[in-house]
């Protein structure tokens, strides 16, 4: 059990790192993007830059939180 917990902890630290907001934000943005792609509501040329902008917003939130600590 300790080994499994240690293994999980290692991968959490490795991928998620210092701020969980980035991992969660990226997953939320991409999940929203997946829904839009599946429904075909927006053209690729519009959706791709919008998702890029949303990712920038995620980092902004994380930086503000990091600066307040």
């Amino acid at each position: 059990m300790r080994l499994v917990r240690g293994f999980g902890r290692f991968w959490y630290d490795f991928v998620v790192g210092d701020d969980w907001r980035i991992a969660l934000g990226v997953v939320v943005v991409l999940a929203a993007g997946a829904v839009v792609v599946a429904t075909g509501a927006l053209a690729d040329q519009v959706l791709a830059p919008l998702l890029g902008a949303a990712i920038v917003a995620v980092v902004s939130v994380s930086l503000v939180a990091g600066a307040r600590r």
Partner: protein
Amino acid sequence: MPARATGRRVLHVTSVAVTADTAGLLLSVFLASAVEFVEALTIVLAMGVTRGWRSALAGVAAAVAALAAVTALAGYALASWLPESLMQLVVGTLLLIFGLQWLRKAILRAAGLKAHNDEDETYREEVAAGRGAASERRLGVDWFGFVVSFKGVFLEGLEIVFIVITFGLNADDVPTAAAGAALAGVLVLGAGAIAHRPLARVPQNTIKFAVGLLLSTFGTFWAVEGLGVFAAGGESLQWPGGDAALPVLLATWCAFAWVAVRVLRAGSVAGEDVHGGEATAAAR
């Protein structure tokens, strides 16, 4: 004749694009790997000096063997089991989260809100730990030196493997990615062997900033492209301008980082002034 001329132009443009992509891939993997090699070298040097080179190098050898197994398994699984766009999505998302963490830390460091990496200080700490630990021999080696070297090389090496696999598979050019990492390894380990001390003069924080920008750029590009797996045809999503969107994305991340550092630095200075003022008022 015009058709042939057009064909030649297309061929020329394609070869330039391929060269730029390859150079970008090589540079990204080289820089990211160099930073990790420098960190691993510091740990191994400290263990070699305090606990003996035999146990330190045994730890390195064991870590390299474990990394080779992980690389072969992960690379085979990703390349064989996942369709291209799903692989782009999975690997691109991991790379994006990983890259954004690097970028976030680099911005906070540049704004003075996080301590800078100092290899000399890390080396001193590792040496102190090495001198203070009790002696215990297992399998003919000093166990502390072996385990610390193994963990250092394995963890830093895992980041290199991760970067080589994610970049290599997404760019469909694993050999170039591996060559970038190998080149970094040869240069850093060569310099470490000659200097016989931590490579504190390597501008690690600057390199980490550049790597964060590159990882974020490629991660954004590939993760969004990979969303095409949810489209009716299952083909990768197209950025406006195709691969030409990469330099635009890089410029966007650079501009964002530049603004973020300035805003956060101004905020921290203003905060210090406020706290300084409060302290002065309290002293009065």
